[in-house]
């Protein structure tokens, strides 16, 4: 078989197996699969295999990308129209968008942000408020992105002087303050009760609450958001990749390693940092808007420190700096808790254990960015 064809087929098969795993794996099968993955991670040979597999994919980037897109589009069908898993995967993609944004902070310029959920909240509320005032979804989303861009800029101002763990604490505080404000500014946010009845998204007379009728198959209503998130995620990936590839990406790397050095070559470091943090925060606006409209309800509980940590963990476990890696990391980390439900009370325990084990055996993430071998930030 020609190799591109092989690549396409194996990726599509991968998606199908994923769907099967999500829907069907339970009890012992699930435990076995999870155990196998854990063992696989711990065995050095698997690292080699991952690298080879990726190298093969990279050999045919177009075929691989096309296959991924097709696979993702077909996923609802692979999932046999199961609304629950389609919903879970939509949320996972929203997390992936956040991970891409946070990666700009953490991966590109080395800023540890422990308050990304705060930005997410800003985006979600901004979008919701506008949308409830009657604005269409796309406008609300753009507005949310703009608001997050501005808020991120303010965080960027803090990052000019503080760095490292100090910035981490500033952002931790930021996340906390946002949450407190949401709780207390009840006239705007309805406080702890949260905002219910966020309108559905409509386009061309089609509402996201309606099933997609393709004639031969009726896709459940959750599919609407699945595709919306898929488009948003692809757009985010393209955008981040685009900026990474031009001078901006180069200066990110240089700045991360040596701010004084780059300033001597003409980079206005404060301005650049502000713009970068703002840029990375913008993704939170997109994610927030999608999240609010997808769930239809938002409350302060959805934007806690734990959520920030989750996004951070996605980026680190996926592989700091590697866009593909952080996307995969985010999806794994948001699907895993759903699959771990059978553990009941031990779910969070296993979650913590999984985090530690993965870090120990894959400190640079599942798909590490090779450029970072000489770095420690």
């Amino acid at each position, binding site marked *: 078989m020609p190799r591109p064809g092989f690549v396409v087929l194996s990726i599509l098969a991968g998606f199908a197996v994923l769907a099967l795993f999500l829907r069907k794996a339970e009890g012992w099968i699930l435990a076995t699969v999870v155990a196998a993955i854990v063992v696989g991670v711990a065995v050095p040979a698997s690292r080699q295999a991952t690298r080879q597999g990726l190298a093969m994919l990279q050999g045919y980037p177009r075929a691989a990308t096309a296959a991924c897109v097709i696979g993702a589009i077909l996923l609802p069908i692979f999932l046999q129209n199961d609304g629950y898993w389609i919903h879970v995967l939509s949320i996972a993609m929203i997390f992936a968008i956040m991970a891409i944004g946070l990666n700009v902070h953490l991966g590109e310029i080395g800023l540890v942000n422990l308050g990304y959920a705060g930005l997410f909240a800003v985006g979600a509320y901004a979008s919701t408020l506008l949308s409830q005032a009657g604005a269409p979804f796309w406008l609300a989303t753009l507005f949310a992105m703009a608001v997050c861009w501005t808020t991120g800029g303010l965080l960027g101002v803090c990052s000019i002087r503080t760095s490292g763990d100090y910035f981490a604490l500033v952002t931790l505080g930021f996340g906390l303050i946002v949450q407190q404000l949401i709780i207390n500014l009840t006239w705007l946010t309805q406080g702890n009760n949260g905002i219910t009845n966020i309108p559905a998204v409509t386009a061309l007379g089609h509402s996201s609450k309606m099933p997609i009728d393709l004639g031969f198959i009726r896709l459940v209503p959750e599919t609407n958001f699945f595709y919306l998130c898929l488009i948003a995620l692809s757009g985010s990936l393209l955008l981040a990749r685009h900026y990474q590839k*031009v001078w901006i990406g180069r200066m990110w790397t240089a700045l991360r390693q040596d701010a004084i050095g780059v*300033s001597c070559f003409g980079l206005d*470091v404060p301005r650049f940092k502000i713009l970068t943090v703002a840029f990375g925060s913008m993704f939170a606006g997109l994610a927030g808007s999608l999240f609010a409209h997808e769930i239809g309800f938002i409350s302060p509980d959805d934007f806690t420190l734990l959520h920030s940590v989750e996004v951070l963990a996605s980026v680190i476990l996926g592989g700091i700096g590697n866009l593909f890696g952080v996307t995969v990391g985010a999806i794994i980390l948001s699907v895993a808790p759903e699959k771990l439900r059978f553990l009941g009370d031990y779910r969070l325990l296993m979650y913590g254990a999984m985090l530690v084990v993965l870090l120990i055996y894959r400190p640079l993430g599942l798909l590490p960015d090779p450029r970072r071998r000489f770095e420690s930030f």
Partner: protein
Amino acid sequence: MTASATLLEIRGAAKSFGGVQALDGVDLHLGTGEVLGVIGPNGSGKTTLFNLLTGVVRASGGTARLAGANLLDLKPWEISALGVARTFQNIRLALGQSVLQNVLVGAYRQNRTSWWQVLLAPHTVAVRETQAVEKAMEALRFVAPALAAAPDRIVGELPYADRRRIELARAVVGNPRILLIDEPAAGMNPHETAEIADDILRIAARGMSILVIEHKMKFIATVAPRIAVLNFGRKIAEGSYEQIRTDPHVLASYLGRKGDHLAASGDR
């Protein structure tokens, strides 16, 4: 040197770190196209002088006039915009990046575009990027021909001498008016030292003015017709190599008893 061609005029540059008076009122001038050597004992303030001139460290006094502006009041990127570039005594490169990527950092100033352009005018951006790469490759060919053949090598895997050359390439790629070079020959063997000296002369021939710090006397004698000697943050002598090598202050504080360092086949 004729005063008429003076490009950079430093007066009373001073800097103290807590109790340490690193620079204590230094006057220097640099003519267009000139190479000025700066020498002096360890800790005499040479690197600090460079740091003041590039805005990395705030001066506690003095002025440095270049094209009507006082460099000592400006931020590093503003100074860079005036056409000042430098290398660092402790090499500062992105070790995980390729040679080309590192050199491209130096080309940032001429080839940047706005964030909006990146989004909305990808074509313009692509053209600029290609230009930048061309410039960087040219600079590499100029100062490090061997590396120009392998621009994708990762800097962290290269030996010390090559890293120094990359720093030099990064500094010249932006075509600065003034180049500040800090100990380019440290850790190099005599042969490589001679090569670097040659590079510097060729750079100067392109019309860039150069301030160079070095402890290797043979090197400094080759590249710098005029040399300033610092000690305890003050200038204690200035002149040609022949003039300063007999200066008793310089001998006592810097060169040492043996004095003539060119005679030996070593590199001092």
